[in-house]
């Protein structure tokens, strides 16, 4: 295994090993809470949160490592500004290692509000697959300073894992049936082309198209790449039912 494969597998393992808590909601939200808690440890952060974009573009806070992070996530939506919202707009990571120096002009309302809660640095990473933006993984620290190359890399991988968990959950599949976090991101070209085809075929948005393809693959016990190949070569047309 290369070092990077090692780290993705290792991060998966750490997320899976994170204990659940009595107040974790069931299913995917509980899993994402656990991911946030594991991520906070791995990234040496004081809090981690996940927000998602619904298909009508409205953002919503979904999971967090702790109550304070949950509050900080919510703040962005109440104030209408913040790194996570910037990530949704641009699809680029938003890195602010020093809110005092760099945040005040950018987010005049958000910055003092989160600093009041002890946060001094914020790093937001997109959860996306091509043009499909699902959400963001936000990392909070109570001290100024950048994350550094290795930690940023780990954050990217954790955002990938979170995205994968979300898509899997929305596809209504049994947890653990998909092999690796890379499955969603690194599929062959045809998988992305099939997403575009299904999007137009069914008249749904790209995220829904992603989900439908996966759901079909699992329902028929076939590899996603094979289903995608059949869609691209016009051998398969997904039905317009909601099953």
């Amino acid at each position, binding site marked *: 295994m290369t070092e990077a494969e090692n780290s993705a597998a290792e991060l998966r393992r750490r997320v899976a090993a994170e204990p659940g808590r009595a107040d974790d909601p069931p299913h995917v939200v509980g899993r994402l809470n656990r991911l946030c808690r594991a991520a906070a440890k791995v990234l040496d952060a004081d809090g981690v949160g996940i927000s998602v974009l619904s298909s009508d573009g409205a953002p919503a806070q979904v999971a967090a490592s702790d109550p304070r992070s949950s509050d900080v996530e919510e703040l962005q939506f109440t104030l209408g500004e913040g790194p996570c919202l910037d990530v949704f707009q641009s699809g680029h990571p938003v890195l602010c290692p020093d809110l005092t120096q760099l945040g005040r002009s950018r987010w005049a309302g958000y910055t003092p509000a989160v600093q009041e809660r002890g946060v001094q640095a914020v790093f937001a990473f997109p959860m996306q697959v*091509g*043009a499909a933006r699902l959400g963001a993984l936000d990392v909070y620290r109570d001290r100024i300073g950048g994350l550094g190359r290795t930690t940023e890399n780990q954050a990217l991988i954790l955002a990938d894992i979170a995205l994968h968990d979300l898509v899997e959950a929305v596809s209504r599949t049994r947890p653990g049936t998909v092999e690796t976090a890379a499955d969603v991101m690194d599929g062959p*070209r045809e998988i992305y082309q099939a997403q*575009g085809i299904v999007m*137009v075929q069914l008249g749904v948005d790209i995220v829904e198209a992603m989900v439908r393809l996966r759901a079909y693959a699992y329902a028929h016990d076939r590899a996603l790449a094979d289903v995608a190949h059949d869609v691209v070569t016009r051998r398969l047309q997904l039905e317009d039912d909601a099953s």
Partner: protein
Amino acid sequence: MLTAERLAEVFVAVADTLVDDFDVIDFLQLVTSHTSELVPESAVGLLLVDAQSQLQVMAASDDRTELLELFQVQAHQGPCQDCFTTGEAVVNADLEQAGDRWPLFAPRAVEAGFRSVHAFPLRLRGEVIGALNLFGPDSGRLAEDVARVLQALADVATIGLLQERAIRRGEQLTEQLQQALNSRIAIEQAKGALAQLHDISIDEAFELLRTYCRQHHLRLTEVARAVVTDPASIPELTRH
């Protein structure tokens, strides 16, 4: 052959990366297409590493699906993978003799009509972030000066990547590479959507997209995103 004018176009494109509306995919496409002029009947691909150290095809001189797949096979085996691992260029590899070295890759490349392959690393301060890959139609050796120009073009691609505005926003190179990969994915999604909309092949869909961008001086990544997320905003392309 690569004329002075074409080379100048590459340098101008690099200079353009200093201004705001730089599109990394467009830039890499330009580099690969001009590079392919160095060797007649060649195909050129450019691969970059993602956050998980996997090589991904970002641009190619010829966007036909079979060729893209041939470039992509090298994520696991082939001259690009070797070049990435060792940091050294792989030059003048005779594909017909390379069956033992690259059993998955070499026969496929021969079948596609190529006889030689060369790979040049994209290097950044001792680290390899990708590779520029050229397939040639015959097994003749590359002239020394051509090989040097190819390495220079690989270096030019690296410079262009670094200039991308976001680097100046403080992002690490890892995020940049991940972004480029994401842009590429958006283009694939757009290809599928356009193919379905107009009942054409995936390759024809890409031509349609690219022609539209050229005619309207728009960025490939931006239009691809619009096709997928807001088709009503570009009726000329999405109306059927």
